[in-house]
Protein backbone atom coordinates (compact mmCIF):
# COMPACT_ATOMS: atom_id res chain seq x y z
CA UNK A 1 0.00 0.00 0.00
CA UNK A 2 1.53 3.29 -1.08
CA UNK A 3 1.76 6.19 1.32
CA UNK A 4 -0.41 9.14 0.42
CA UNK A 5 1.02 12.61 -0.01
CA UNK A 6 -0.64 15.99 0.24
CA UNK A 7 1.23 18.82 -1.45
CA UNK A 8 0.27 22.24 -0.13
CA UNK A 9 1.21 25.04 -2.48
CA UNK A 10 1.29 28.57 -1.10
CA UNK A 11 3.13 30.52 -3.79
CA UNK A 12 1.77 32.82 -6.46
CA UNK A 13 2.37 31.63 -10.03
CA UNK A 14 4.93 34.17 -11.27
CA UNK A 15 6.81 35.55 -8.27
CA UNK A 16 9.39 32.76 -8.13
CA UNK A 17 10.27 29.30 -9.37
CA UNK A 18 8.44 27.77 -6.46
CA UNK A 19 5.04 27.25 -8.07
CA UNK A 20 6.61 25.47 -11.04
CA UNK A 21 8.86 23.35 -8.85
CA UNK A 22 5.96 22.40 -6.62
CA UNK A 23 4.05 21.20 -9.67
CA UNK A 24 7.08 19.15 -10.73
CA UNK A 25 6.88 17.25 -7.44
CA UNK A 26 3.21 16.55 -8.10
CA UNK A 27 3.68 15.50 -11.72
CA UNK A 28 6.60 13.22 -10.85
CA UNK A 29 4.51 11.55 -8.15
CA UNK A 30 1.64 11.20 -10.62
CA UNK A 31 3.96 9.55 -13.13
CA UNK A 32 4.77 6.94 -10.44
CA UNK A 33 1.06 6.42 -9.82
CA UNK A 34 1.34 7.53 -6.21
CA UNK A 35 -1.76 8.63 -4.31
CA UNK A 36 -1.41 12.37 -3.98
CA UNK A 37 -3.45 15.51 -3.75
CA UNK A 38 -2.80 19.19 -4.20
CA UNK A 39 -4.06 22.01 -2.02
CA UNK A 40 -3.85 25.61 -3.23
CA UNK A 41 -3.52 27.87 -0.22
CA UNK A 42 -2.79 31.59 0.27
CA UNK A 43 -1.31 33.22 -2.86
CA UNK A 44 -1.25 29.86 -4.65
CA UNK A 45 -4.96 30.27 -5.44
CA UNK A 46 -3.80 32.88 -7.99
CA UNK A 47 -2.44 29.95 -10.01
CA UNK A 48 -6.02 28.91 -10.62
CA UNK A 49 -7.03 32.05 -12.49
CA UNK A 50 -7.79 31.43 -16.16
CA UNK A 51 -6.44 33.47 -19.07
CA UNK A 52 -3.15 34.52 -17.56
CA UNK A 53 -0.59 36.11 -19.88
CA UNK A 54 2.81 35.08 -18.56
CA UNK A 55 4.45 35.92 -21.89
CA UNK A 56 4.16 39.59 -20.87
CA UNK A 57 6.56 38.73 -18.04
CA UNK A 58 8.77 36.64 -20.33
CA UNK A 59 7.71 33.58 -18.37
CA UNK A 60 6.70 30.14 -19.56
CA UNK A 61 3.04 29.32 -19.13
CA UNK A 62 2.29 27.31 -16.02
CA UNK A 63 -1.26 26.59 -17.10
CA UNK A 64 -0.19 23.70 -19.32
CA UNK A 65 1.44 21.98 -16.32
CA UNK A 66 -1.67 22.57 -14.22
CA UNK A 67 -3.93 21.20 -16.94
CA UNK A 68 -1.70 18.11 -17.13
CA UNK A 69 -2.47 17.15 -13.52
CA UNK A 70 -5.54 14.99 -14.31
CA UNK A 71 -3.61 13.33 -17.16
CA UNK A 72 -1.07 12.27 -14.56
CA UNK A 73 -3.82 10.82 -12.41
CA UNK A 74 -3.91 13.73 -9.98
CA UNK A 75 -7.56 14.48 -9.59
CA UNK A 76 -7.69 15.42 -5.93
CA UNK A 77 -7.35 19.18 -6.26
CA UNK A 78 -8.38 21.51 -3.47
CA UNK A 79 -8.41 25.24 -2.80
CA UNK A 80 -8.96 27.12 0.43
CA UNK A 81 -12.16 29.17 0.43
CA UNK A 82 -10.68 31.72 2.78
CA UNK A 83 -7.71 32.31 0.42
CA UNK A 84 -10.08 32.82 -2.52
CA UNK A 85 -12.32 35.20 -0.56
CA UNK A 86 -9.40 37.24 0.79
CA UNK A 87 -8.26 37.86 -2.80
CA UNK A 88 -11.73 38.55 -4.16
CA UNK A 89 -11.74 35.49 -6.41
CA UNK A 90 -14.89 33.76 -7.55
CA UNK A 91 -14.72 30.01 -7.11
CA UNK A 92 -16.92 29.53 -10.18
CA UNK A 93 -14.45 31.17 -12.54
CA UNK A 94 -11.31 29.16 -11.81
CA UNK A 95 -9.26 27.47 -14.52
CA UNK A 96 -9.08 24.08 -12.78
CA UNK A 97 -11.77 21.84 -11.31
CA UNK A 98 -10.91 22.25 -7.64
CA UNK A 99 -12.92 21.42 -4.58
CA UNK A 100 -13.20 24.48 -2.37
CA UNK A 101 -12.80 23.83 1.35
CA UNK A 102 -13.59 25.77 4.51
CA UNK A 103 -11.07 25.99 7.34
CA UNK A 104 -12.39 22.98 9.34
CA UNK A 105 -12.38 20.89 6.14
CA UNK A 106 -8.74 21.87 5.52
CA UNK A 107 -7.82 20.50 8.91
CA UNK A 108 -9.63 17.28 8.10
CA UNK A 109 -7.97 17.06 4.67
CA UNK A 110 -4.47 17.44 6.07
CA UNK A 111 -5.08 14.75 8.68
CA UNK A 112 -6.14 12.27 5.97
CA UNK A 113 -2.70 12.09 4.35
CA UNK A 114 0.33 10.12 5.48
CA UNK A 115 2.81 12.81 4.45
CA UNK A 116 2.57 16.51 3.73
CA UNK A 117 4.88 18.80 1.77
CA UNK A 118 4.31 22.57 1.96
CA UNK A 119 5.94 24.76 -0.64
Amino acid at each position, binding site marked *: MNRSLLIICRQSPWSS*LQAREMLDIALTGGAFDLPLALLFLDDAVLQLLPEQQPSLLQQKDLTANLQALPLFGIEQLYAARRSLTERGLDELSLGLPVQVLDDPELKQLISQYDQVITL
Partner: protein
Amino acid sequence: MKFVIALYAPPQAPSSRRTLRFAEALLAGGHEITRLFLYQDGIYNAASTQVVPQDEVDLSHEWRQFIQRHQLEGVVCIAAALRRGVLDVPEAQRHARTASCLAEGWTLSGLGQLHEAIQQADRLICFGGP
Protein backbone atom coordinates in the same frame (compact mmCIF):
# COMPACT_ATOMS: atom_id res chain seq x y z
CA MET B 1 12.43 5.29 13.09
CA LYS B 2 13.35 5.92 9.46
CA PHE B 3 13.41 9.59 8.48
CA VAL B 4 13.73 11.33 5.15
CA ILE B 5 14.70 14.98 5.34
CA ALA B 6 13.92 17.49 2.60
CA LEU B 7 15.47 20.96 2.62
CA TYR B 8 14.23 23.82 0.42
CA ALA B 9 16.20 26.81 1.75
CA PRO B 10 19.76 27.98 0.97
CA PRO B 11 22.63 27.59 3.47
CA GLN B 12 22.37 31.17 4.74
CA ALA B 13 18.75 30.60 5.83
CA PRO B 14 18.21 29.72 9.51
CA SER B 15 16.20 26.68 8.44
CA SER B 16 19.27 25.12 6.81
CA ARG B 17 21.17 25.29 10.08
CA ARG B 18 18.15 23.90 11.94
CA THR B 19 17.94 21.04 9.44
CA LEU B 20 21.50 19.98 10.14
CA ARG B 21 21.04 20.24 13.92
CA PHE B 22 17.82 18.23 13.65
CA ALA B 23 19.58 15.59 11.55
CA GLU B 24 22.38 15.36 14.11
CA ALA B 25 19.84 14.98 16.90
CA LEU B 26 18.04 12.21 15.00
CA LEU B 27 21.19 10.13 14.70
CA ALA B 28 22.14 10.86 18.31
CA GLY B 29 18.70 9.61 19.30
CA GLY B 30 19.24 6.29 17.52
CA HIS B 31 17.06 7.04 14.49
CA GLU B 32 17.98 6.42 10.88
CA ILE B 33 18.13 8.98 8.06
CA THR B 34 17.39 7.07 4.88
CA ARG B 35 17.89 10.04 2.55
CA LEU B 36 18.62 13.75 2.56
CA PHE B 37 16.99 15.52 -0.36
CA LEU B 38 17.81 19.07 -1.45
CA TYR B 39 15.30 20.94 -3.60
CA GLN B 40 14.66 24.50 -4.73
CA ASP B 41 17.24 26.89 -3.21
CA GLY B 42 18.21 24.11 -0.80
CA ILE B 43 20.49 22.78 -3.53
CA TYR B 44 23.00 25.52 -2.67
CA ASN B 45 23.81 23.55 0.48
CA ALA B 46 25.57 21.12 -1.88
CA ALA B 47 27.73 23.76 -3.58
CA SER B 48 31.44 23.47 -2.82
CA THR B 49 32.40 26.97 -3.93
CA GLN B 50 30.99 29.08 -1.14
CA VAL B 51 33.50 31.11 0.83
CA VAL B 52 32.23 32.01 4.28
CA PRO B 53 33.92 34.57 6.56
CA GLN B 54 36.12 32.84 9.13
CA ASP B 55 33.97 33.75 12.12
CA GLU B 56 30.75 32.44 10.54
CA VAL B 57 29.35 28.94 10.28
CA ASP B 58 30.26 27.21 7.01
CA LEU B 59 27.15 25.13 6.65
CA SER B 60 27.95 23.55 3.28
CA HIS B 61 31.21 22.33 4.77
CA GLU B 62 29.39 20.98 7.84
CA TRP B 63 26.94 19.13 5.61
CA ARG B 64 29.80 17.47 3.73
CA GLN B 65 31.42 16.34 6.96
CA PHE B 66 28.12 15.12 8.38
CA ILE B 67 27.27 13.08 5.28
CA GLN B 68 30.73 11.55 5.10
CA ARG B 69 30.98 10.79 8.81
CA HIS B 70 27.66 8.94 8.83
CA GLN B 71 27.79 7.56 5.27
CA LEU B 72 24.43 9.14 4.45
CA GLU B 73 22.72 9.31 1.11
CA GLY B 74 22.61 12.95 0.04
CA VAL B 75 20.55 13.57 -3.08
CA VAL B 76 20.23 16.89 -4.92
CA CYS B 77 17.40 17.41 -7.40
CA ILE B 78 19.12 17.52 -10.77
CA ALA B 79 16.62 19.87 -12.44
CA ALA B 80 16.74 22.36 -9.56
CA ALA B 81 20.55 22.17 -9.45
CA LEU B 82 21.09 22.62 -13.20
CA ARG B 83 18.84 25.66 -13.22
CA ARG B 84 20.89 27.22 -10.42
CA GLY B 85 24.32 26.31 -11.76
CA VAL B 86 25.34 23.60 -9.31
CA LEU B 87 26.70 20.94 -11.65
CA ASP B 88 28.75 17.80 -11.22
CA VAL B 89 31.52 16.98 -13.68
CA PRO B 90 29.41 14.91 -16.13
CA GLU B 91 26.68 17.58 -16.26
CA ALA B 92 29.24 20.35 -16.76
CA GLN B 93 30.65 18.38 -19.70
CA ARG B 94 27.22 17.57 -21.08
CA HIS B 95 26.16 21.21 -21.07
CA ALA B 96 29.58 22.60 -22.06
CA ARG B 97 30.08 24.58 -18.84
CA THR B 98 33.54 25.49 -17.61
CA ALA B 99 33.03 24.67 -13.95
CA SER B 100 31.39 22.13 -11.70
CA CYS B 101 30.84 22.71 -7.99
CA LEU B 102 28.77 19.86 -6.58
CA ALA B 103 30.39 19.02 -3.25
CA GLU B 104 31.67 15.57 -2.42
CA GLY B 105 29.08 13.34 -0.80
CA TRP B 106 26.11 14.68 -2.75
CA THR B 107 24.59 13.09 -5.86
CA LEU B 108 22.46 14.68 -8.56
CA SER B 109 19.29 12.73 -9.26
CA GLY B 110 15.60 13.15 -10.05
CA LEU B 111 12.52 14.00 -8.02
CA GLY B 112 11.57 10.33 -8.16
CA GLN B 113 14.21 9.88 -5.42
CA LEU B 114 12.16 12.09 -3.12
CA HIS B 115 8.98 10.12 -3.77
CA GLU B 116 10.78 6.81 -3.35
CA ALA B 117 12.25 7.96 -0.04
CA ILE B 118 8.83 9.15 1.16
CA GLN B 119 7.36 5.74 0.40
CA GLN B 120 10.01 3.94 2.41
CA ALA B 121 10.40 6.20 5.43
CA ASP B 122 8.30 6.45 8.57
CA ARG B 123 8.52 10.23 8.56
CA LEU B 124 9.15 12.96 6.02
CA ILE B 125 10.44 16.15 7.64
CA CYS B 126 10.63 19.25 5.45
CA PHE B 127 12.57 22.41 6.23
CA GLY B 128 12.68 25.81 4.57
CA GLY B 129 9.21 25.98 3.09
CA PRO B 130 7.16 29.17 3.22
